């Protein structure tokens, strides 16, 4: 039996390492030699039975794996140990059964052992991956528990029934019980796995429900988008109103001009009379009076420059914002000297319109705040212009600011606008929009001498090619 005492631990270790898949290192070889040595030594002591050896083996392997190898998956180690112990036990049992059924000489037992060892090695070689999976998957606890269960019941059967080496009723019953146990374990395991699968499909259903919910949310987002569209339409309508206001303003100017032409003749006549009389004071007084009553200077200059804008989006935003400043009674000037027909580059004109709108709104807001602070409407001033030179389009706006509005050290910090205060959310939005056009748009903003300046340049296509 010494032979088997040597082979059995070797096969055990083989199964253990094969299934675990751990890389073998020097300490593993040292441990193996010690382990086999201890097993052979224990095997030679006749007063110790197999079950006790198994327990010692299990403890040794566990201690080595957990403390020396520092494998922290205790469950996996227990699974591995119980697995190879179970196989070991099965091998012993099968040899015993063979010995009972066939009258085999003692000397050939070694060959049977060898044969069975060889068989087990072959099976493990083929299925070790599958076993490793069982030990690691979500059902591993059930699997390990069943192995332990089968192992202990087999061990009991083996110790009680097979020790007396004869076919007795007790042996037959035990064997059938053992087979029943094994069948039961397999059945239990597969049932557990099936239940798991069912749970899984339930989870899938849950996921589907979740997806449905997501789709709903999507739909809601779409609805919100639609609402936004409606809002935009309203905005367009208000812009339209402003355009209508502009055109009626032009019509009225036309009338004023006609009336002036009519008045002019009369005034000239009466002036002539006064002048001939040498009454210059009266002439000046009359002229003054006429000017004051007939011309509203501010109204006359209301839309100055707008007639040079031929790009309709740029024109309508200018009109809309100018009329806003006018109705807020703010001092402003707007300039567009050159005729502007189009904007260079592949810029979505609506993005540009948004930027212009935001900066005008910012300027108006700050001006109102300034007036509230100083109580003098003349402290506020907004100047804006469109400019086109060499293909570049420029937009500039500046407005007087309160003394303490801008903590300039904060403003000049990189990305300061993302903090969404100081100059308002507006500037952060502008930055976000211009981010799309890094290589076409140049944006500057700074505070200088009580003015906040914002200017934006869209580089012409040629210029961009030069810089590329």
């Amino acid at each position, binding site marked *: 039996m010494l032979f088997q005492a040597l082979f059995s631990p070797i096969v055990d270790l083989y199964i253990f390492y094969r299934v675990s898949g751990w890389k073998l290192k020097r300490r593993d070889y040292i441990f193996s030699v010690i382990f086999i040595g201890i097993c052979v030594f224990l095997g030679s002591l006749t007063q110790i039975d197999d079950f006790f050896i198994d327990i010692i083996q299990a403890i040794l392997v566990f201690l080595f794996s957990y403390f020396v190898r520092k494998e922290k998956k205790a469950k996996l180690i227990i699974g591995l140990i119980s697995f190879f112990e179970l196989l070991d036990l099965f091998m012993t049992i099968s040899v015993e059964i063979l010995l009972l059924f066939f009258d085999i000489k003692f000397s050939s037992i070694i060959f049977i052992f060898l044969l069975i060892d060889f068989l087990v090695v072959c099976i493990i070689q083929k299925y070790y991956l599958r076993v490793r999976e069982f030990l690691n998957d979500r059902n591993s606890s059930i699997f390990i528990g069943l192995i332990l269960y089968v192992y202990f019941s087999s061990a009991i059967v083996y110790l009680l029934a097979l020790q007396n080496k004869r076919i007795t009723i007790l042996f037959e019953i035990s064997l059938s019980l053992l087979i029943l146990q094994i069948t039961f374990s397999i059945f239990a395991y597969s049932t557990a796995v099936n239940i798991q699968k069912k749970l899984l499909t339930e989870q899938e259903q849950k996921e589907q429900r979740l997806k449905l919910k997501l789709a709903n949310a999507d739909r809601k987002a779409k609805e919100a988008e639609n609402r936004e569209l409606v809002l935009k339409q309203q905005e367009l309508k208000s812009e339209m109103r402003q355009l209508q206001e502009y055109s009626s303003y032009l019509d009225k100017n036309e009338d004023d001009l006609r009336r002036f032409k009519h008045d002019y003749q009369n005034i000239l006549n009466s002036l002539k009379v006064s002048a001939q009389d040498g009454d210059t004071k009266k002439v000046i007084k009359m002229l003054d009076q006429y000017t004051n009553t007939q011309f509203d200077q501010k109204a006359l200059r209301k839309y*100055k420059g707008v007639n040079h804008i031929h790009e309709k989006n740029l024109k309508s935003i200018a009109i809309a914002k100018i009329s806003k400043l006018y109705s807020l009674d703010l001092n402003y000037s707007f300039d567009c000297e050159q005729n502007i027909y189009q904007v260079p580059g592949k810029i979505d004109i609506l993005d540009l319109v948004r930027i212009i709108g935001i900066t005008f709104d910012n300027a108006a807001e700050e001006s109102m705040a300034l007036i509230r602070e100083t109580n003098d409407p003349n402290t506020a001033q907004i100047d804006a212009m469109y400019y086109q*030179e060499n293909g570049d389009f420029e937009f500039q706006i500046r407005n007087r600011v309160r003394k303490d509005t801008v903590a300039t050290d904060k*403003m000049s910090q990189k*990305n300061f606008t993302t903090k969404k205060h100081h100059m308002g959310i507006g500037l952060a939005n502008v930055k976000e929009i211009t981010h799309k056009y890094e290589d076409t748009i140049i944006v500057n903003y700074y505070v200088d001498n009580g003015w906040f300046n914002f200017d934006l340049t869209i580089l012409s296509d040629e210029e961009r090619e030069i810089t*590329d």
Partner: protein
Amino acid sequence: MKYPVFICDDDQDQIEQTKKILGAAEMILSDDEEVEFSIATAKNYMDAITYLKDHKLDGGIYFLDVELGGDTENDTGFDLASLIKKNDERAQIIFVTSHADLSLITFRRRLGPIDYIVKTSDLDKLRRMMVKTVEIAIYNLHKFNYMKKMTFSYKIGRQTRNVNIDDIIYISTTVTPHKLLMILTTGEMQLLGSINQYAQENPLLEKINQSCLVNPKNIKSIDLKQHRVSFINGDVEDFSRTSVKRMKDLLAEYNYKTEKLAKKEEENGSLT
């Protein structure tokens, strides 16, 4: 010191009034040094051009009526100003106008800083404004050469833009090739070009690494161990190994605080 002054107005009364106020200004402003004006006048665009052709002024102060008589579409005070600026680089131009809502923004863009005075019947107020404007003009004339040296210039298209070097904290590259970001004490600007080019043109600025040009005046503290500097606005930049010696010189010159500096995370993500 004697300053050439040129007044162009189609209203003789206005010219006389301006002369009178300038006379008063001579007295008021002659505090530290004697201020004297040699005044020339013109009544219309053509006269003005003829006079200025014969008398080349250097560092003159110009009072120009925006609405010069005649064809208002072309020969306005603005056109005259463009011409003057071409001939007299240091020209201090002051527009006189009757409209409070006069739009100067386009001309500022073309000609640089320009001042203006709104005509008013309140003589006291007019005098106050005029004296103040003249004082600023004289100050600008004095500072002109110094300011020119202290100016960082760059071009966008045909336009040259100027920034006071003292306002610059640093200039760094951006993700877009050829585009640079200039952080100012008062805001930020984007410009085209390369760090090396601007480093060469502006000896007052210091290149601390391949992608960063800084104004040594606006460095707050330095971390020699980790090769970092922080600026007065709180931003932190690394400097390269090769500029260590130069940074030590600057440290000795400007006496920066030395401290351990940590680089802030880029906040680009927070934009979304």
